[in-house]
């Protein structure tokens, strides 16, 4: 019996490289975010030094125009970004996967109606929907932004889930499961979700990045929470007037945003490639 279980060495290497890079990038942010719960270098709302100081051993990223320590704010930004990304994707995933599966199983009429509704929702930019919701709630609250982003993402997730589930539903192994006596809920849990999960999870990573960037944009537009719960977008906004004298205030949040978004995507790709049996051994 032949066992073609060897993976091409170069391919394997790049997989684990993506996984390691992703783990490193995301790990840094998780470490910073968790650390803020027990320890901060300085009080994020108080003057910790002179105004617009450059980087030093005391202030790794210098201080802002009010003399607040920038590194402290960046650490808190990691925590906020993780909460936003995880929260929005969790909401988007639960609503989106449920709706998508419903549509895939629905009668043609209901399915068409759902698909059309989703297309219309997706046509609105995520940021615009989130802005409307946040502007409508009177306090600039992190949770209203997360819920708004989650709902906006759910339309995208639902459309993808619907297509993926329909593709799986026509497979003979679904019919085989039925003639094996498996109930539909069981078929969803055992056959459909595991087979759409690899594609979904990579999409969730993408949505995570989008959500974090969208929240940063909201904050940049003044719709985010002030320190001590400021996000990277808020830091960016506050640094905008002094970008020539103290560029780190603008550069640091930018790098943080991009590194987290890329890290999550690398991590998702890497995890999929190591966990998915059909990829692991191809």
């Amino acid at each position: 019996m032949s066992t073609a279980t060897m993976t091409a060495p170069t391919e394997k290497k790049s997989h684990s490289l993506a996984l390691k890079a992703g783990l490193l990038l995301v790990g840094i942010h998780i470490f910073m975010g968790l650390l803020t719960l027990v320890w901060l270098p300085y009080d994020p709302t108080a003057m910790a030094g002179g105004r617009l100081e450059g980087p030093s051993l005391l202030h790794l990223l210098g201080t802002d125009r009010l003399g607040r320590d920038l590194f402290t704010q960046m650490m808190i930004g990691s925590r906020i970004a993780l909460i936003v990304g995880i929260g929005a994707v969790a909401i988007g995933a639960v609503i989106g996967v449920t709706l998508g599966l419903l549509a895939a199983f629905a009668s043609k009429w209901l399915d068409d109606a759902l698909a059309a509704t989703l297309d219309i929702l997706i046509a609105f930019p995520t940021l615009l929907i989130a802005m409307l919701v946040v502007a409508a709630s009177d306090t600039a609250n992190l949770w209203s932004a997360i819920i708004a982003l989650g709902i906006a993402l759910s339309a995208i997730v639902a459309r993808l889930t619907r297509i993926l589930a329909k593709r799986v539903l026509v497979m003979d192994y679904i019919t085989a499961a039925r003639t094996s006596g498996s109930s539909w809920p069981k078929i969803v849990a055992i056959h459909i979700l595991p087979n759409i999960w690899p594609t979904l999870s990579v999409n969730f990573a993408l949505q995570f990045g989008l959500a974090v960037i969208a929240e940063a944009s909201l904050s940049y537009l003044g719709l985010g929470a002030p320190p001590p719960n400021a996000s990277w977008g808020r830091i960016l906004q506050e640094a905008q007037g002094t970008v020539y004298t103290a560029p780190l205030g603008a550069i640091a949040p930018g790098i943080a945003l991009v590194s987290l978004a890329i890290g999550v995507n690398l991590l998702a790709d890497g995890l999929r490639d190591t966990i998915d049996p059909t990829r692991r051994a191809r």
Partner: protein
Amino acid sequence: MSLVRVDHVSFGYTANRRILDDVSLEIAQGDTIGLVGESGSGKTTLLRLLLGLARPDSGTITFDGRPLDPRNGAFMRDFRRQAQVVYQDPYSSLDPRQTIQSIIAEPLRSLKIPGDHQKQVGDALEAVGLDRDVGTRFPHQFSGGQRQRIAIARAIVPGPRLLLADEAVSALDLTTRIRIVDLLAGLSKTMSLLFVSHDIGVVAALCRRIVILEKGRIVEAGDTAAVLANPQHPYTQRLLASVPRLTLNEVSS
């Protein structure tokens, strides 16, 4: 005594197009029947009705004397155990993300069949000519012919009395095809077999009786040898004329 009885069954996926038209058919206990017809003649559709995956618009199907009613849960559980199916495409009939053990054990789990499932799966694997210990592997680690054996193992593991095979050897190369036909021939000694094919050569080698389906109607049925020696219906004559000589020789040798 007849195990399956199809009585004047008609069916269409949509109201304005009939796929099966007044089909009557009997499968006796232990019989092997070849269902032959061109692509689109309704063979798979008839199997779907026989499996209770769709219901006839008119006419009745009975299994072991009881009406085949998909809404009757207690009956269906017993029926699923007794009627199993092997599909044409060995690549789409096995869930790529499940182990072989889990794939073959699915009917045992879902139909709540008692006993040591691991052992039953091992026995089924052996019965189809595979090693007992391949259970931890995944479908993509097997060839098309091996996958079809795995699909057959899943079908026989609950101990069915009726095995339906929908073009189960069509996707395989000639040598593998002959091996799988041999395997099915062995299995048909212990269960009834309805073997769907557009390959008359294979049917001739495997089936005692033959049923010819044309555009949803049964145009000819009878003893395979008799029908092939002296086809009555023009459609059967045309089907026979189009059989490549090679296939007939290969299989009968």
